[in-house]
């Protein structure tokens, strides 16, 4: 068997693939966080819980209404996104004038509520979600076996990430969004309804998390804890990438997924902590993050 640096190539590429998959989720989630932070100035601690809700929604749709994976990919983010809009209108809108910390604390409370309710009704064990029929099987690439579903996840998240980046950085709507984060009063004077824009942005960010959740359902088990475990890693990704930058969120997400995968091959004990270690090093060298501007 072919070996690279003393590691069987199949294992190396296998871990690289897992890293790329994890990276897809890091990128999607940190992208959602960045979008919400940009508009609302709130660190959405409930992001992990909303990701979990996406997976749970897909599971429940299949279980009780027979709605399968493909429709769920649209329906579940819509439901969870609508839930996000309700949250923004009932809770978050009162906090914009206060210290940012209150937003963090409130969404932390929301995360506890959502996770607690999920645990009560679903139990702590994971629930299986079957792969969609059309994406079973895989390709033999010669040097490794690539399951179709994993290839699909990587491609879709790349498309979504760069689609969002394009929408925000290159379109008129994105220009309004960026202008509103700089100076909401002025943008309002141009006749643009900024509060509605803020609400929809939060809904979009939440829907993005839920979308990631639906995509994660067939790979990881659907469990109430799945978001809580991920969110802290995503926070580290955000600190490394620099919160100001959409592109930073995407590139750091994928990059760190790969680094984590490689660590699992060469030094498995450190695979859980490597991202945090990188965060510490980046903070020493560039406190604003790799793609961040200022402090």
């Amino acid at each position, binding site marked *: 068997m072919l070996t690279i640096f003393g590691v069987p190539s199949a294992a190396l590429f296998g871990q690289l693939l897992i890293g790329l998959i994890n990276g897809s989720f890091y990128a999607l989630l940190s992208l959602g966080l960045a979008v919400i932070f940009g508009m609302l100035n709130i660190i959405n601690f409930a992001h992990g819980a909303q990701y979990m809700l996406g997976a749970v929604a897909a599971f429940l749709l299949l279980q009780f209404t027979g709605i399968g994976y493909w429709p769920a990919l649209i329906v579940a983010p819509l439901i969870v996104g609508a839930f996000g809009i309700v949250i923004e209108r009932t809770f978050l809108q009162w906090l914009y004038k206060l210290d*940012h910390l209150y937003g963090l604390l409130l969404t932390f409370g929301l995360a506890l509520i959502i996770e607690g309710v999920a645990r009560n009704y679903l139990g702590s064990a994971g629930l299986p979600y079957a792969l969609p029929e059309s994406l079973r099987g895989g390709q033999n690439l010669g040097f490794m076996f690539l399951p179709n579903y994993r290839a699909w996840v990587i491609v879709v998240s790349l498309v979504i990430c760069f689609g969002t980046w394009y929408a925000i950085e290159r379109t008129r709507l994105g220009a309004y969004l960026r202008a509103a984060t700089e100076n909401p009063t002025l943008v309002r004077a141009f006749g643009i309804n900024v509060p509605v824009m803020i609400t929809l942005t939060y809904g979009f960010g939440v829907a993005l998390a839920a979308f990631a959740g639906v995509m994660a359902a067939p790979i990881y088990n659907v469990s109430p804890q799945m978001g809580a475990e991920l969110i802290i890693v995503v*926070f580290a990704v955000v600190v490394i990438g620099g919160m100001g930058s959409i592109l930073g969120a995407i590139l750091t997400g994928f990059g760190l997924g790969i680094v984590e995968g490689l660590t699992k091959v060469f030094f498995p004990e450190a695979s859980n902590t490597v991202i945090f270690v990188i965060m510490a090093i980046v903070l020493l060298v560039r406190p604003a993050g790799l793609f961040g501007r200022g402090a």
Partner: protein
Amino acid sequence: MLQRNGEAIGFVVMVVALMVAPFFTYPLFLMQAMCFALFACAFNLLIGYVGLLSFGHALYFGWASYLSAHAAKVWGFNPEFAILTGTLTAAVCGFLAGSLAIRRQGIYFAMITLALAQMMYFVALRIKFTGGEDGIQAVPRGKLFGFIDLSNETTMYIFVMVVFLAGFLLIYRIIHSPFGEVLKAIRENEPRAISLGYKTDRYKLIAFVLSATLAGVAGSTKAITLQIASLTDVNWPMSGEVVLMTLVGGLGTIFGPVVGAFVILAMQFKLSSVGEWVLVIQGVIFVTVVLLFRRGIVGEIAALFKR
């Protein structure tokens, strides 16, 4: 020692209440509550007086409890040296994490402290001496200074109370010292403090290390009292819990964290039968306090008296 009348009365009431309480409720519960109260006071030193929200204080609390438990059990240290070992551990961890975290402010600071704490949680999960999922159990309470037997419940209670009150008074002293005034100036307006010539980063780091160290005293004392050090103490929900305690009691009030710790612990104790719903109830309290009672219990009462 205590400057303002209201605070002096409050302190006397607290001491009397702590002396009488064991006759009405479980001493073990009270000892645990005092450890958490000290932990919350240490946390409040940062958020309430410097304006820094550390979301990773479980790191200092938990690792101090591991090291003191290990020192007492494996190295056979007397309880006072075991607690000292844990406290020093927390101080070193606080210095390392603090030097990194104070490079950023506000929510970034919160996220960095949280991420660093989670890193050390994974370390605790992996390495041998922490006992992984089992934790360090059957920690001996030992003899204080070699002759005061702490296996006696009353002696233990008095010891924990002395530690708690000493920590509390130290924090009070820090807040009302010139050093504390600089901290408050940094909280109110950091650029102005810098322009006045204060090296604010150095002040923030010292405050961070002090807070981590006192959290370490709390964690070490808890490990000796309850005779166990476990993963729960070092995992992130613990960091959230100490935020909740302080928030409920009142950020930036001297008695707030104490009241908050007792309220939250009593709630968990009474509600232990409802299982996972405790999580939901804590979340609801979080949301309610942030939306409606940002001053917390003690803060609201103080505001009532001021009118």
